């Protein structure tokens, strides 16, 4: 058997996991990354990684419940076979990471300690201090370094992926990439290519993501013919620290420990917050949700904070949106003991001590649920078929997508501490799939026709040269990016309205045209960050357009996608009979809506119109039938009753049909 060679683009958790697995299977890997892989965005994950475990099992938990929580949290937009496989692998993933030396927090007896995260009743989350992502990444980075010394892995750090190389049949035969130091553009031939390039937070200007999370790598695959799935689904975290350069996460635990969210009743009150008397403060979460107060779920907290600033005009500051997150009523010693680490982040980056001054926070784009469409092969047990070449393969043959840049696993909304799991799982799981794919091919990396390679390389060199030479326009890529971020943040984050989305589509199309006419301030050919950024900005647009169009066409509320015009109303009647009738109607409408929108949106790039075309794909919900999420709805108990009766009727109908056949 000839030696296989695979190119992996991206060195976060997913990219490193697949790299080390492939190396173990004897495959040579060229690992390309914009940054030394140890610095990838995975380091920013704080909370932890989920799996059911010995302790939760004895409380009734199992892998199936992890699957259930994940698809319920995702509002049933997740294909269920990959999620099932992930949930069943989860305990094994954590055991492997433990063996690799991750310093997970320990119990007194020396077992891995667990904490509880949102969207579940069980303490499934293993964690390493407040830097779980960093610790997991370092363990994988070390294994890849070990494989590098052994000679099977070669790292290309500070290389920018430009596009997949495709032969005349459309099959992916390698990549074109650019050295960000010398600016050399060259081809990397391969039997298969894996993109593990993370999220696209920079579409929104500033987000909680690292500077390299532009989504441009996924967009370059998209423009080469790979499809996108669920591009409109992004997660917005309710509490982030606004900054001039980025929005830094402020953990939910600040509210968990008693933090109160408020704004002055008088808009932009110029007094210092502590001088504002209690009756002139509006504790809007406590007022609107007396039962849950400041601890409403993430999506609701996000929407309310957004609403109070955007629609009510009650932002703390006049020139920027923010609300107070106040811990000053809690004794300092208690804060230090329970929240020390996260308060230090605020203090370090804001220069203000949150023990004495309320923090100013605002929601921020945090995660991309959607991404490159990827395939899978379902096994008889409802999970995935191990080793099937199609697992995680995009619509371009031989091009795989894993981690945050794919669209599997998180549906319409991601649960906390599931992202690290999906990245490591998908990376480990597809190693054998890639080997099997490569073994079934006639021509490998050594037989890629030089004409195919030359054409791809020439095309990218031309793009580069023409940008350096000047497009004839005078647009500034940095300002274009800022403007894009403003438009996207206004129209497509927390609350979505069709008129605003349509306006944003027009605006973004115009910006796209302008982005093609950039003028660079650096025309040189050595470590030219200016031209690399200009290209990334240009490539943000196809993704941004798909996100906006997908959101425009999806006339419903599902998970993180919230359109008030299509929100299902609470039950209004007090009369039991009428209430029951309303609940029946509610369930009818819910089912009708699912028939229309319980589908993945699939975007295909149309180079002619310079716009995406959107179609829909059915979601495999064969394992756990979809059910309504009824949080905070008046009449929820009646709806639930009706729904359960219907589900039971359906189940017995199925049994009957099965026994008759």
């Amino acid at each position, binding site marked *: 058997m000839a030696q296989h060679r695979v190119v992996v683009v991206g060195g976060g958790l997913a990219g490193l996991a697949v790299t080390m*697995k492939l190396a*173990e299977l004897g495959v040579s890997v060229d690992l390309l990354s914009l*940054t*030394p892989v140890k*610095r*990838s*965005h995975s*380091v*920013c994950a704080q909370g932890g990684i989920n799996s059911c475990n010995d302790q939760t099992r004895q409380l009734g938990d199992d892998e199936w419940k992890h699957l259930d929580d994940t698809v319920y949290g995702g509002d049933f937009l997740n294909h269920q076979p990959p999620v099932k496989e992930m949930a069943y692998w989860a305990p094994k993933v954590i*055991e*492997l990471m*433990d*063996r*690799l*030396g991750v*310093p*997970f*927090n*320990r*119990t*007194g*007896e*020396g077992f891995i300690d667990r904490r509880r995260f949102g969207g579940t009743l069980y303490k499934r989350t293993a964690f390493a*201090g407040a*830097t779980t992502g*960093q*610790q997991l990444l*370092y363990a994988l980075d*070390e*294994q890849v*370094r*070990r494989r*590098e010394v052994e000679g099977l892995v070669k790292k290309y750090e500070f290389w920018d992926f430009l596009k997949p190389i495709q032969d005349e049949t459309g099959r992916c035969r390698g990549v074109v990439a650019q050295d960000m*130091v010398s600016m050399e553009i060259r081809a990397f031939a391969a039997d298969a290519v894996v993109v593990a390039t993370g999220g696209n937070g920079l579409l929104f200007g500033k987000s909680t993501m*690292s*500077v390299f999370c532009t989504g441009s790598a996924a967009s370059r695959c998209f423009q080469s013919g790979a499809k996108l799935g669920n591009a409109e689904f992004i997660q917005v975290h309710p509490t982030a620290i606004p*900054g*001039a*350069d*980025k929005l*830094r996460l402020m953990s939910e635990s600040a509210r968990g420990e008693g933090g109160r969210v408020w704004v002055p009743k008088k808009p932009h009150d110029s007094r*210092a917050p502590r001088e504002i008397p209690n009756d002139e403060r509006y504790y809007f979460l406590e007022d609107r949700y007396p039962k849950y107060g400041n601890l409403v779920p993430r999506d609701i907290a996000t929407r309310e904070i957004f609403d109070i600033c955007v629609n009510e005009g009650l932002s703390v*500051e006049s020139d920027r949106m923010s609300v107070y997150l106040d811990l000053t009523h809690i004794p300092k010693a208690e804060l230090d003991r329970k929240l020390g680490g996260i308060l230090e982040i605020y203090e*370090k*980056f*804001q*220069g*203000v001590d949150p023990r004495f001054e309320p923090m100013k926070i605002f929601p921020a784009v945090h995660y991309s649920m959607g991404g490159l469409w990827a395939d899978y092969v379902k096994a008889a047990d409802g999970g995935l078929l191990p080793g099937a070449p199609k697992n995680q393969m995009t619509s371009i043959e031989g091009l795989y997508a894993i981690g945050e840049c794919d669209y599997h696993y998180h549906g319409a909304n991601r649960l906390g501490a599931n992202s690290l799991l999906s990245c490591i799982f998908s990376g*480990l799981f597809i190693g054998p799939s890639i080997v099997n794919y490569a073994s079934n091919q006639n021509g490998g990396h050594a037989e890629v026709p030089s004409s195919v390679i030359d054409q791809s390389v020439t095309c990218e060199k031309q793009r580069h040269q023409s940008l350096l030479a000047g497009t004839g326009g005078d647009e500034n890529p*940095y*300002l274009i990016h800022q403007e894009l971020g403003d438009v996207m943040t206004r129209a497509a984050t927390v609350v979505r309205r069709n008129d605003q989305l349509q306006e944003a589509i027009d605006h973004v199309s115009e910006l796209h045209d302008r982005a093609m006419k950039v003028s660079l*301030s*650096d025309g*040189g050919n*050595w*470590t*030219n*960050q*200016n031209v690399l*950024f200009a290209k990334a900005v240009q490539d943000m647009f196809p993704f941004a357009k798909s996100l906006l169009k997908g959101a425009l066409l999806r006339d419903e509320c599902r998970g993180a996608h919230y359109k008030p015009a299509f929100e299902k109303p609470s039950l209004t009647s007090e009369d039991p009979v009428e209430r029951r009738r309303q609940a029946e109607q509610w369930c009818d409408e819910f089912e009708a809506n699912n028939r229309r929108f319980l589908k993945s949106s699939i975007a295909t790039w149309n180079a002619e119109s310079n716009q995406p075309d959107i179609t829909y794909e059915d979601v495999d919900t064969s394992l756990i039938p979809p059910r309504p999420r009824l949080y905070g709805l008046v009449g929820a108990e009646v709806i639930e009753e009706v729904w359960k009766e219907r589900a039971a009727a359906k189940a017995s109908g199925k049994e009957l049909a099965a026994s008759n056949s």
Partner: protein
Amino acid sequence: MIAPVPMKKNARTQFRVRVLRQDGPGKESYWELFDIDYEREMNVISVLQKIAAKAANSDGKKVAPVAWDCGCLEEVCGSCTMVINGRVRQSCSALVDQLLNDNPDEIVLEPMTKFPVIRDLMVDRQRLFRALQRVKAWVPVDSYYNMGPGERQPRDDQEQNYPLSQCMSCGCCLEACPQYNKIELTKEAGETDEQFEERKLAAYDTSFVGAHAISQVMLHNRNPTGKSLAGERLDALMGPGGVSTCGNAQNCVSVCPKEIPLTTSIARAGRATTVAAIKKWFEK
């Protein structure tokens, strides 16, 4: 409070930044001044972003943006190390208000001096990562198959290991170290890329390994499986450029942004290598 440090800075509309620039390896370095419009809550990253967007110096002359390296912007990735007002640190957590409080005239940005400059504030830290290879900073597991859980570990061990494991390879400890000297080689005529790479690595491998790598040895030698390579790691620290090179200046620990107890690791490594050397001598 509307702005973090009100008094002086409310009046401020602009401030000056002085950057030590260099167009490429082997080129002369030069100072360039930039006037930056003041905004509240700026850090050095946002200053450099403004310079990139404006691309003009204080004379209004069009210049190429300053090249620099950054990533997470929240001090966990280790990318954005540079020398700011004479002190090595991460530029993301270097707040403009605090810098101007210390020195109202200007903010001075320089690349690290212990690594070859690629361009402007970007340096080549390959030697830093090479040191992690040199000391085999990994756990040599048999496989990545499912083999059940690892060993139970006492909470105390985790609490000692976790701080060491937070090292983000930023290089602050190396910049501050008097024993860590810059190695900048250039490709010779007739030398292939591979030959040049080999010569470079050989030079790195015999020079001081640095506090960060010594600390990683102590971390991995404590791991239940990792300790199977303890002898090899200590060997690496006993060779040229090993732990005995340390002059005990203790600068490393004072500049570490993660407050890793580097000097404790160095002291332990010193003892461990001594014990290993004596053992070897007896086994001869």
